[in-house]
C-alpha cells in the first residue's frame, strides 16, 4: 500500500515537472516568434518610407523648380536602399537615405509656399510618423530580443533552451554616427 502511494507521488511530481517544462518551452517559442515579428515590422516601416518618397518629390517639384540635384540625390538614395540585399547593406543604405531626406527638408525651408501647401504638410506628418515608426520598430525589436535572451540565459528556462537549441539573438546595433541622430524632418 505504501509503495502504491509513493508511486503516485512520484508520478504526480513527474507530471508537474512535465507541465512546467511545456510551459517554459511554449514561452520560449512565443518569445522567439515575437522577435521575428518585430524584425519583420522594421522591414514594413522601411518599405513605407520608400513608398512615401515619390509622392514627396512630386509635390515638391512644382515649387522647387531649380533643385534638380536635391531630387536626384534623394531618388538615388531611395533606389540604393530598395536594392539592398544583406542586413548590413540595408542598414548602411537606409542611413544614407535618412541623411538625404534631412538634406531635402533643409532645402524645403527656403520655399515658404511649399511649406504652406496642405498636401505637403500632410506628407510631412506622414514622413515624421514613418521615421518615428522605424525608430520604434527598432526599439521594440531590441526590447523583444532582450526578453528572449534573458529567457535563454536565465534559470530555469536556459535548461529547456539548451535542450531545444534556442540560441540568443543579436541586438540591432546602431551602425553609423549619422544614424544615432534621429533624422530631423520636422522643422515646424
Amino acid at each position, binding site marked *: 500500500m505504501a509503495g502504491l502511494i509513493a508511486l503516485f507521488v512520484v508520478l504526480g511530481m513527474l507530471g508537474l515537472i512535465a507541465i512546467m517544462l511545456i510551459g517554459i518551452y511554449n514561452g520560449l517559442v512565443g518569445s522567439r516568434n515575437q522577435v521575428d515579428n518585430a524584425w519583420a515590422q522594421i522591414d514594413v516601416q522601411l518599405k513605407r518610407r520608400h513608398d512615401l518618397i515619390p509622392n514627396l518629390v512630386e509635390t515638391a517639384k512644382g515649387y522647387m523648380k531649380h533643385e534638380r540635384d536635391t531630387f536626384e540625390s534623394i531618388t538615388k538614395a531611395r533606389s540604393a536602399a530598395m536594392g539592398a540585399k544583406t542586413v548590413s547593406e540595408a542598414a548602411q543604405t537606409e542611413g544614407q537615405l535618412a541623411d538625404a531626406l534631412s538634406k531635402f527638408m533643409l532645402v524645403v525651408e527656403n520655399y515658404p509656399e511649399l511649406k504652406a501647401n496642405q498636401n505637403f504638410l500632410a506628407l510631412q506628418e506622414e514622413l515624421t510618423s514613418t521615421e518615428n515608426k522605424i525608430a520604434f520598430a527598432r526599439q521594440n525589436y531590441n*526590447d523583444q530580443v532582450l526578453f528572449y535572451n534573458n529567457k535563454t540565459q536565465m534559470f530555469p528556462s536556459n535548461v529547456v533552451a539548451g535542450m531545444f537549441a534556442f540560441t540568443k539573438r543579436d541586438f540591432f546595433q546602431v551602425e553609423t554616427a549619422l544614424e544615432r541622430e534621429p533624422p530631423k524632418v520636422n522643422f515646424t
Partner: protein
Amino acid sequence: MWELIRTNKRNSILLMVLMAVMLLLLGFVIGMAVVGPEGGLFGVAIAAAIWLVLALISFSSGDQILLTATGAKRVTHDVHPQLFNVVEEMKIAAGLPAMPKVYIINDPAPNAFATGRSPQSASIAVTAGLLARLNRDELQGVVAHEMSHILHRDILYITLAGIMLGGIVLLSQVFMRGMFYSSMGSRRRYSSDNRGGGQAQLVLFVIAIAAAILAPIMAQLLYFALSRRREYLADAGGARLTRYPEGLASALEKIAGDPSPQLAAANDVTAPMFFANPFKKRGQRSLSDLTSTHPPISERVRILRNMSQGASFKDYAQAYTAVTHSKNIVPAAALTGDDVQIRQAQAGAVKQEKAQKQVHEIGDIMRRVNGFLFLTCGCGLKLKIPPNFTPDTVQCPRCRRTLHVHAQPQSPTTSP
C-alpha cells in the same frame, strides 16, 4: 513590462474574487435579515445571479458601454492623421498584436482613456480638447500611457471592476429602498416570532444595514487604491515606451493648468479610468487621502522629471522613492536592469495657442469627426460643409465664387 503583466493578471483575479465575495456576503446578510434564517442562501443566489449577469455584460460589451457613455466617436486616419499616426507609433513600440480602435470625445476638457477586453481588442479615446492643446511629443506621451494600460492588462480589470462596483452599489441601494418601503411588514413578522428569534433577526438587520452602507464604500476604496498604483505604473510604462519622460510630464502640466469646465462624462464610476483626475474641485489631494481616484498631478510630474538617468522601470522606481519617500511601487520582477536611454525632444516649438484659437481648433476637429467637408476657396476662406448638404455647388460668401462640392481625396499618401 512582461513581469508586470503577470503580477497584474494575478492581482486582477484576486480582486475580482474579493469583490465577488463582498457582493455575495452582502446578499447573504441582506437575505438573512429580510426573509429570515433560511433566506441567507436565497440572498446569496440572487447576488450570484446579479454578479454573473454583470460580469457577462461587462466582459462582452463593457468597453462599448463606456465609450458610448462618454460620447466617443470612432475615427479613421483621414479624420485626424496625427492622432492615428501617434497611436500606430505607440502600437509598434509596445509590440501590440493589433491596432487599437481610435476614438475622439467631443469635449474641450483635455483627457484620455483606454478600454477594451485584451490587447487584441482595445480602444483608445482622446478628447478634442487634448488634441488641440498638446504638441506631438506630449500627445505621444499620453497615448503611450494609455498603451501601457492596455499592455499591463489594466483595461479589462478597470472595466470589470467598474461594473462590479456598480453592482454592489445597486444591490445596497435596492436593499435600502426595499427596507424603507417594507418596514411595516418586518415589524409584523417580529411580533409573531418568539423572543429569541426576534432579537437575532434584529441584530442581523443592523448588520445588514451596516453592510449595505459600508460595502459600496469598501468596494470604492479597493477600486481607487489599486487605480492609483496602476496610474503610476502606466506613467512608468509610458515613459519607457517613448524614451522621453518629459513629454508625459509637460502634457500633465498642461492638463493641470487647463481652465476648461469639468469633463462632461466624468462621474464616480468612470473617473478612475481617465488619464488625469477629471474632477475639478477635488484636484490636488494628498496621497494619504484614500478616496482620490488619481495620484496628484504635481507628484506625477515631479517623479517623471526626476528620471534623469534613464527611462526604464528601475529609473522610475528610483524617482518614485526619491520624490514620495514611500516604499517602492514597481513590482520587483520588473526591476531588471535594462539600460534605457532617454532620447532627444522631437516636436519643435511648444504649442502656445490663444484660448480662442484652441476653441476654434476643437470645433474643426469635431467637424472632421462628424464628416464635414473642408473646402478652401481661392480668396482664402475655408468652408466647412455639413455631411447632409445635398447641392453639388456652393457659393463662397466672401467672393461669390462657385465651388464644386465633391469628395476631394485629402490624403496624399499611398495606401500601405
